[in-house]
């Protein structure tokens, strides 16, 4: 399973995104606001999820801001850290 696929699955499960299927989440879908519809409190949860499921830590704003834009940017961030 690719990082993107796993990411979509854990987001749905851990954020309890009701009535959303993994294939309904597009790679360029924005995580916050319009798109997946997450909010600032979910950002806290998202940082925990990434660490828990991928062992990757989002340490600060500098790396968090570009990573937490879309599924693609977050998946790339995780892949880069795992490489």
């Amino acid at each position, binding site marked *: 399973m690719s990082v993107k696929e796993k990411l979509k699955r854990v987001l749905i499960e*851990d*954020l*309890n995104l009701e009535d959303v299927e993994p294939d309904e989440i597009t790679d360029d879908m924005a995580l*916050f*606001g319009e798109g997946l519809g997450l*909010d*600032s*409190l*979910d*950002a*806290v*949860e998202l*940082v*925990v999820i990434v660490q*828990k499921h991928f062992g990757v830590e*989002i*340490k*600060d*704003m500098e790396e*968090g*801001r570009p990573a*937490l834009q879309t599924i693609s940017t977050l998946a790339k961030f995780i892949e880069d850290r795992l490489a």
Partner: protein
Amino acid sequence: MSSSNSRAARKARREWTSRSIGSGWQHQSFYLMIRFGGRRAAYLLLYPVVFYYVLLPSVRQKCRYYLERRFPGGGAWARFKNSYRMTLELGKVLVDRALVGILGPQQVKVSLHGQQDLLALLAEKKGLILVNAHVGCWQVAMSALGFMETPVNLLMQREEGDIDRHYFEHAGIECPYRIIDPRGFLGGALEMIEVLKRGEVLSVMGDRMLGKDRNGVDVSFLGGQVRMPFSAYKLASATGAPIVALFSYKTGPDSYELKLYRTIRVPHDLGRGHDVFVPYVREFSATLETFCSEHPFQFFNFFDMWQNSVAESDPEPDSLT
């Protein structure tokens, strides 16, 4: 929550602002009194000014929301007297804050209760979340936290057009705390996680909603339901940081105390739901009730906190508070 209640809540929010009372020249008058006559001169001016303001029905109404719950059943004279005392205490706090900035920190003595407990919590190396409230004079009292030798970060939103100045602005020095703006990227969430991961101190207000109401939960407070933010408890759950309810209060003309009222431990990984945080927010509201019973006139929320639960669709900025 009915739609009429939601409308009332929205109306109450529109009417309320955290901007300071009084115009620029009135504030300048107090600063002038402080410069040339110190605290005593500023307080002398304060008594008639407060009396004038309390004659205004709008000012008494702003006091009444809280006072009716703290002192139920009082007559008109008692309500007027209590409004005067509450407004006077706020005035003194504002004078003291300016006094520290203009004449120096030696103008106010701050004693801390719970220093060893704070050091023990910091030694856990998980950061520390100070949950404050709009009581006493937190800006002055925070000066007593220097012993921690750890950077203190404040989540703080400045109202546009606020003419009231913080003590460090009076003193012309750099702000001693790092300010995290809740209007920043993701409501400052990443910055707050970052400082806690570094083992630093994060200070937030726990008694007042600033952003979306869905970032709050309803808890009982002084006989009614109020909505209080749960972001601090969510951060604690995500990072393992302990929470302390830390309140300040004025004890004399030139003295304050800062007291650690309660340590709140939030279990790790509580998840996304709102309701799981209710017990911890309730601990905080119960602690705030204790404060109000001990220092009834040093509680400074001049709006109807009990008009809560704005509809989910309320178009307010996304913020962690």
